[in-house]
């Protein structure tokens, strides 16, 4: 194989010269933002007293819902998430006010001086509790194909089960941050650690009550995101923009690791209840599943994540009769959000755990059950796609062969029979992952390419470099002129 070219940013990264938002010289006159985070998960706000913080030396201003010039709304898919809550606190750690000060330590000290009077409301944290109260953002979603009830009745064996997966912290190494710089005519320039430049622009404009073209969003690069800066970066970008807009000074929002972990959403915990029908060989005839996710306080991307879990609920297996139901639950946790796989892993986990149980029930190797049920050409998925170029079965066989699966199984069994306290496990599974956005209109992109008088070229796209070597890919995709010039274009 030819040697891969270096990461364009590589020499900068390894020598500590690459630029990240906030890890750079402060701007002259810049104010530092810190927040008063809700100390309670669910409550009615009676009064938020800002006066002591406002009077603290070195504090420029304390802003809350009353100071928002446009809409106090950062919800995107559904308009359910305020920038600052007015009446009802929805999660522990929700920002209730922003303190701007000349120094970070002063902003932080002043944030401790706010006094919140509130009336506590019963909080909901679990999927079970939210289900009982029917706290759903939208009505149940359903995908169905074939007669599941009949297939379950006819099946030689059925298993009823319940599976759950927990939350997960993104732990992008670079915490949430934005620098906002006010310019002429209410133009706001944002240096922002976001995966969604377009969303930041759109929502900032609405919150400030200005036109979208007044908001410039620039992302130098991200120190990791993993989905955690797809929606979750927006609120911090808007906060910085609001501070700069109101104060006329540059403003930096930079969360500490502790703040970040406490107040930002995580991977969606899922709970699923299912029935699976199969024959004596392990061939699956019916799959009836309800998927429920814990979306947190606001809808965020929960619907799309739930749908992706539903689209992946059969993984790579052909099942003639399928019924997949999904419900996204509102709870009083920080709004859960995109995270590597975007619901896919949670959907796949359920069918894979069911397959494991089938194997145990029939006393067969789980790999045999998986191979038996793999999609073949011509099969139809629950959502009506006809499978072509099916490769999962071949891949499973190749992997098993390359890994010497039978030998490994033998070794694991030997280890387990000779060790009382330590046990080993072994498994091979396929993973299906649907590429592209499920909202099809989003599957488009564009680039702005400038060729300068001296022959140098610059490429601007909405893509965000976060370690995936996007800049290198873009330079490789760029027109042949750049190859002729044999120069690295400037990528924005």
């Amino acid at each position, binding site marked *: 194989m030819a040697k*891969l070219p*270096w*990461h364009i*940013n*590589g*020499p*900068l*990264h*390894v*020598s*500590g*010269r*690459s*630029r*990240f938002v906030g*890890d*750079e*010289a402060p701007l002259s006159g810049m104010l530092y933002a810190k927040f008063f985070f809700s100390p309670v998960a669910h409550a009615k706000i009676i009064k938020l007293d800002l006066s002591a913080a406002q009077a*603290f*030396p*070195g504090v420029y201003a304390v802003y809350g819902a009353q100071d928002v010039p446009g809409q106090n709304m950062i919800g995107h898919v559904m308009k359910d998430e305020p920038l600052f809550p007015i009446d009802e606190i929805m999660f522990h750690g929700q920002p209730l006010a922003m303190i701007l000060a*000349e*120094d*970070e*330590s*002063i902003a*932080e*000290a002043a944030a*401790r001086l706010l006094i919140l009077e509130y009336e506590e409301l019963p909080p909901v944290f679990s999927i079970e509790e939210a289900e009982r109260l029917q706290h759903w953002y939208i009505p149940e979603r359903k995908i169905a194909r074939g007669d599941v009830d009949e297939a379950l009745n006819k099946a030689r064996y059925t298993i009823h089960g319940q599976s759950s997966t927990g939350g997960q912290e993104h*732990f*992008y*190494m*670079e*915490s949430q941050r934005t620098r906002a710089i006010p310019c002429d005519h209410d133009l706001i320039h944002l240096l922002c650690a976001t995966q969604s430049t377009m969303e930041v622009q759109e929502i900032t404009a609405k919150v400030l009550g200005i036109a979208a073209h007044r908001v410039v969003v620039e992302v130098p*690069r*991200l*120190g*990791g995101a*993993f989905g955690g800066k797809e929606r979750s970066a927006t609120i911090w970008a808007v906060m910085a923009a609001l501070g700069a807009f109101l104060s006329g000074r540059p403003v930096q929002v930079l969360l*500490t*690791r*502790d703040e970040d972990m406490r107040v930002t959403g995580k991977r969606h915990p899922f709970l699923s209840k299912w029935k699976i029908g199969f024959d004596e060989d392990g061939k699956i005839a019916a799959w009836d599943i309800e998927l429920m996710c814990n979306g947190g306080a606001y809808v965020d991307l929960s619907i799309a994540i739930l749908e992706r879990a539903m689209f992946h609920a059969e993984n790579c297996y052909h099942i003639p009769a399928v019924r997949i139901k999904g419900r996204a639950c509102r709870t009083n946790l920080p709004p859960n959000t995109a995270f590597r796989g975007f619901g896919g892993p949670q959907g796949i986990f359920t069918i894979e755990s069911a397959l494991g149980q089938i194997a145990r029930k029939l006393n067969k190797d789980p790999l045999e059950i998986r191979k038996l049920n793999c999609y073949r050409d011509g099969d139809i998925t629950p959502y009506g796609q006809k499978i072509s170029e099916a490769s999962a079965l071949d891949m499973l066989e190749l992997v098993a062969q390359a890994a010497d699966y039978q030998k490994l199984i033998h070794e694991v069994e030997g280890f387990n029979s000779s060790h009382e306290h330590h046990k080993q496990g072994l498994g091979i599974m396929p993973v299906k992952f649907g590429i592209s956005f499920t909202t099809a209109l989003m599957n488009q992109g564009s680039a702005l390419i400038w060729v300068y008088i001296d022959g140098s070229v610059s490429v601007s796209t909405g893509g965000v470099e*976060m*370690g*995936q*070597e996007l800049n290198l890919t873009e330079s490789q995709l760029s027109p042949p002129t750049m190859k002729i010039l044999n120069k690295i274009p400037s990528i924005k």
Partner: protein
Amino acid sequence: MKQEQKPGGTYRYNRISFYLNGALQELDIAPGISTLDFVTKQLHLYGSKCSCNEGDCGACTVVIAECREGSTAYEAITSCIYPAAKLHGKHLITVEGLGTPEQLHPIQKALLDHHGTQCGYCTPGFVMSLFACLASVAHPDHESILAALEGNLCRCTGYQSILDAAAELSQEHDPSTIVPPWCREVEPKLFAFDQKPQEVEKPCASLFSIDNYLLPCDVDELKDMLVQHPEASLIAGGTDIMVQVNVLRKHFDTLIDLGNLPELRQIKMGRSGIHIGAGVSYSQIMDSGIAKCDLPELVKLCRLIASKQIRNFGTLAGNIGNASPVGDTLPLLLVYGARLLLSSQSSSRECALRDFFVGYRLTALQPGEFIHEIIIPIPPRTAFIKSLKSSKRKAEDISAVVSAIRIEEGGKAVLAFGGVAAQTVFSERFASGYSPEADWQVLAEQVAQEFTPLSDVRGCADYRKQMIINHILQYREAYHG
């Protein structure tokens, strides 16, 4: 936390001298600020990154060179919890010093060649951890490389590309090509260094968590400082105090740093046992021939404490003085029968470690006193001594339950636990119930009933009771083979 603290006051800065990437600097350090804040906010070197700010992730790793016992040690440290005042008399090496994009250091080049960098945020920390490792040992093996990197988190690469780069470096380089000439040139200057740190009053618009950071130069000066500031907190490595400052924003009026005093940084063999000075780091213990030979279980346990970067300045004395109920080394030190030499300007006394802990985070240390050294009697070779630590991760984690056992040839046995009570304690039930014929299973269940542990984030009460039983059964297995 002092609520009345207002900006605009004056602070006592530490005026220190040190080498930064080869060049001598004399600079004023705000009281108690971390090396990371100092290099980023004051020196505007942004290569070292702040990610967790509590020493767990390693993105802020820098290397410190200092002379010790006749040679120069190059050690990686997590700069976010390393007080910058400690840099006095040392050589601070940051990622910027090692190479430039145009002229990369071999480590930087290898990471690039093996695609060991993706988003780039953790990369400078990996570069510096590898630098310390390869500057100290020629051709480190895989285990040494893993140990050097266990304190560095990367969320993008999955580590394999970084390990591939490290393996190639280990094969093709040794300290002669890893340590640049400008580092070698500083080495003799570190030996000749004799400047004293100063203090200067300066106004500052920021608020600091520490009002006053004192740097004594020798033990006499330390004693004088303690007379003047009897309520001062003592800081050795600072790996716990700095986390309290960074994360909990805990306020300290005065900290006195005893970690830099040469006479407290020695391990000596004495008539009553092995003397470990209060400034001795875990890494020093792990490297010590005396400790390896006579206290092998302590060396083994040190390997499970925090990460390489933290072991390089965290101390045994700090673990004791901190008196945490889950202090990793405390049960083992108890079964060793360790004693402490406690000194002050007016007196010097020995205190058995078991009498030192008097309650939750409370010790017998009197105002004006400091832990001078830890004295560990050398156990007979026939004694069975072992320590076990249960935590969620193998490295870089606080114990849920930690224990140590000692069984003498004659059949006398003691067992001590951390994480099951408000302080580290001996099990009375075990000491009285153990005999060579005793049923360990029965004894284990009785010992579990002796304690009423708390439930917290590291484990619930039932889990901790189960760990008590499991530890004892593991000791049985190890003892009987």
